[in-house]
């Protein structure tokens, strides 16, 4: 009975979404205040109904209601309660419900925090968001209803959650990622709403900036979390596999990054409008494309859920509708928002444009690498796979001009600047970077690899020039320390964002070229020497969990005879899901990770295959993304982007 309530709430919220996508739009075109005002209560109604429906699914999981087939397929009585709850988004139906709930959450957030915006714009934006919700709600109700029953023959126990997902990292990874994906729908709706009216002013850019930044922030954290999870949970110590589904999340990130920067130009300089709109459309379209790729089952990936052709067709249709519709609108109305930029070759506009284009080039690389195998197969040339070196190589090449421009960009003035005034700081910074990069390379690695040096060089170039820029800016009017305190938050946001990228670059450069990976055969009592670290396999013991049987291998690590840590690598066999899982053990530190994971037990019943890895600077990759997201958070907190009542008056 309770599950039916959830289903019912889902259907009513679809009705609300349909109303939300129609009434305010009609109101906006007829200038009917009552209809436009219906947007806010309708958003709330949609959100609350969805939240209710979601809670019911949570309840079904919590109480082990195996008469609901989604619960029976993805949970088990032996599962600890917190994993039972997170199992809600462990598979297709539930994660879509979470997706649409978050979508409604963003809609409500826009409804709440947009009191300073003109009523007509709010109505249009909320209506577009409602339209997106209609698409997803239809998709859930028609093809992937999480409340389907197994009655009358319901199972006594469930099939258990995929063991890979029984991990704290997975509790927050999908919600974060969805927050990011769906968050771009806000920027998309703003863009569509402004295309409808043909009015695209700086106020518009100012309103959509914090939303875009928020979505980008969540997506950054979501991707970083996923990568971190893959690193310790999949048990082979990789942090990025260029897996199609990872790519699907990376593409909106690239477009979103470009969009954030292009929005800045639109707000500050009133140019790049058409480009910004196009980026907003592509960021959200790519989020949808990602969903399509993951959900249709046409991809081979760790993330691929059970496929069902009707689902794929539905999303494909929705995708065509959204992309086609928005591009059509852009084609018809886009000319109205175009303005001729008035800036010289050497100007901050051009620096930003260059990097925007480089981001798009990176996006194309990922898109080609992800879709080409599909196309190749569809046109009958046989199936192929595109290896990671393809992406690695092209990204390395694209990063060189990207970080060069990123370093000098903040120093260049808007509209017009002279290269000659930049020549001196650039030359000095280049020398400092070359020396520092060489120095760090020499300290932190035993041998020279050009790519590592290049990575350090790019990072140092960004850091040195940003420090210089900070100094210049701070000492412009005041002494350094007063000046630093007077800097605007958005300035700090840029600093954090860019320095975070530099930190990640260092991590990537080091871990890609200086990792040491050894697969070895070891029995309890054996020693293994990896560089200066000694790994002693001290014991093997049994450790069973609530729903699995497991072994733990203890490794004592010493460095030149000095004790460092004892690592406990685990191997688990999940009984219900009948699958083996590896829990890697990691000794983390600032400059290196020591990584131990158990393989399988070998024929002599005594020794085990063990992976022992040395991963230099790997934590810097995620640290960099956290610094970047911190930059995003600071940008949102900038007071200039609060929606104030008088915001319009100032603009007018």
């Amino acid at each position, binding site marked *: 009975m309770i599950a039916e309530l959830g289903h019912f709430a889902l259907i009513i919220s679809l009705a609300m979404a349909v109303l939300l996508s129609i009434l305010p739009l009609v109101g906006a075109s007829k200038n009917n205040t009552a209809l436009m005002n219906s947007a806010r209560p309708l958003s709330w109604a949609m959100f609350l109904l969805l939240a209710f429906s979601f809670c019911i699914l949570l309840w079904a999981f919590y109480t082990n209601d195996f008469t609901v087939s989604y619960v029976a397929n993805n949970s088990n009585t032996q599962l600890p309660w917190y994993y039972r709850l997170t199992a809600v988004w462990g598979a297709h139906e539930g994660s879509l419900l979470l997706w649409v709930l978050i979508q409604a959450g963003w809609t409500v957030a826009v409804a709440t925090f947009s009191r300073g915006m003109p009523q007509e714009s709010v109505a249009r934006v909320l209506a577009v968001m409602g339209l997106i919700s209609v698409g997803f709600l239809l998709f859930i109700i028609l093809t992937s209803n999480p409340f389907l029953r197994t009655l009358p023959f319901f199972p006594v126990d469930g099939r258990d959650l995929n063991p890979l997902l029984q991990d704290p990292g997975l509790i927050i990874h999908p919600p974060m990622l969805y927050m990011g994906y769906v968050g771009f729908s806000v920027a998309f709706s703003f863009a569509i709403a402004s295309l409808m009216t043909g009015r695209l002013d700086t106020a518009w850019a100012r309103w959509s900036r914090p939303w875009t930044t928020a979505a980008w922030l969540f997506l950054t954290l979501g991707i970083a979390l996923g990568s971190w999870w893959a690193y310790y949970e999949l048990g082979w110590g990789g942090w990025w596999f260029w897996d199609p589904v990872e790519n699907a999340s990376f593409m909106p990130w690239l477009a979103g990054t470009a969009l954030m920067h292009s929005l800045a130009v639109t707000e500050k300089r009133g140019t790049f409008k058409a480009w910004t709109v196009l980026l907003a459309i592509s960021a959200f379209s790519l989020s949808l494309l990602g969903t399509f790729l993951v959900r249709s089952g046409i991809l081979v990936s760790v993330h691929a859920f059970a496929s069902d052709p009707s689902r794929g067709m539905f999303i494909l249709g929705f995708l065509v509708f959204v992309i086609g519709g928005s591009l059509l609108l852009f084609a018809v109305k886009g000319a109205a928002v175009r303005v001729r930029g008035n800036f010289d070759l050497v100007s901050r506009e051009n620096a930003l444009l260059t990097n925007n284009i480089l981001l798009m*080039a990176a996006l194309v690389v990922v898109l080609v690498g992800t879709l080409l195998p599909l196309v190749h197969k569809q046109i009958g040339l046989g199936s192929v796979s595109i290896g990671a070196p393809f992406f690695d190589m*092209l990204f390395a090449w694209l990063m060189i001009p990207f970080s060069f421009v990123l370093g000098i960009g903040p120093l260049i003035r808007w509209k017009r600047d002279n290269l000659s005034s930049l020549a001196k700081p650039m030359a000095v910074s280049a020398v400092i970077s070359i020396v520092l990069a060489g120095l760090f390379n020499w300290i932190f690695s035993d041998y020279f690899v050009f790519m590592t040096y290049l990575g350090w060089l790019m990072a140092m170039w960004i850091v040195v020039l940003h420090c210089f820029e900070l100094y210049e800016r701070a000492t412009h009017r005041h002494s350094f320390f007063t000046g630093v305190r007077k800097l605007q938050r958005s300035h700090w946001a840029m600093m954090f964002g860019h320095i975070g990228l530099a930190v990640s670059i260092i991590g990537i450069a080091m871990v890609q070229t200086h990792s040491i990976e050894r697969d070895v055969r070891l029995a309890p009592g054996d020693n293994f020497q990896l560089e200066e670290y000694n790994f002693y396999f001290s014991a093997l013991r049994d450790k069973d969990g609530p729903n699995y049987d497991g072994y733990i291998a203890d490794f004592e690590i010493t460095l030149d005879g000095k004790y460092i840590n004892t690592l406990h690598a685990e191997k688990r066999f999940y009984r219900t899901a009948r699958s083996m899982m590896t829990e890697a053990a990691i000794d983390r530190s600032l400059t290196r990770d020591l990584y131990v994971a158990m393989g399988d037990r070998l024929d002599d019943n005594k020794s085990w295959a063990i992976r022992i890895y040395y991963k230099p600077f790997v934590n810097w990759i995620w640290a960099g993304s956290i610094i970047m997201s911190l930059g995003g958070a600071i940008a949102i907190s900038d007071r200039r982007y609060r929606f104030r009542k008088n915001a319009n008056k100032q603009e007018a």
Partner: protein
Amino acid sequence: MNPRRKKRLAIVLAILLGIGSTIGLMIYALGQNMDLFYTPTELVQGKPDGSKPHVGQRLRIGGMVVEGSVKRDSESLRVTFELHDVGPKVTVFYDGILPDLFREGQGIVAQGVLVDATTIEAFEVLAKHDEEYMPPEVAEAMEKTHTPLNYSDQQKQGSSQ
């Protein structure tokens, strides 16, 4: 040409150059990193169009691990196993740790280099984290060229270890 046109020409040329070099690089990188997929039968008898991989080529191969064919070296992690679909068998060498779900009779995909007509030195072996999973490439290729080979009920039950 007036200065404005000249500038415009320069910009267009720069963009063309940029796009050109990106596409060039991309095609070059693709050529280096695209690996074709074969089944054991295709590897031995050639694809329907008669093409066979040459020795030294990088490729992916997918099939079922032949029962009783997995042999490990007693000193190292070197392992050999045979793959088949329904026709001939090919031998795969691999140095390292097999995935958790690697089992005899299970469908797997290996990526590696062809060292002679029926032998592959793999650098990666993939098996999915799902008992009932058969790599779609394998299932599809089997369905196309031969009678479909499905997992038996016993395999779906999983081993009892």
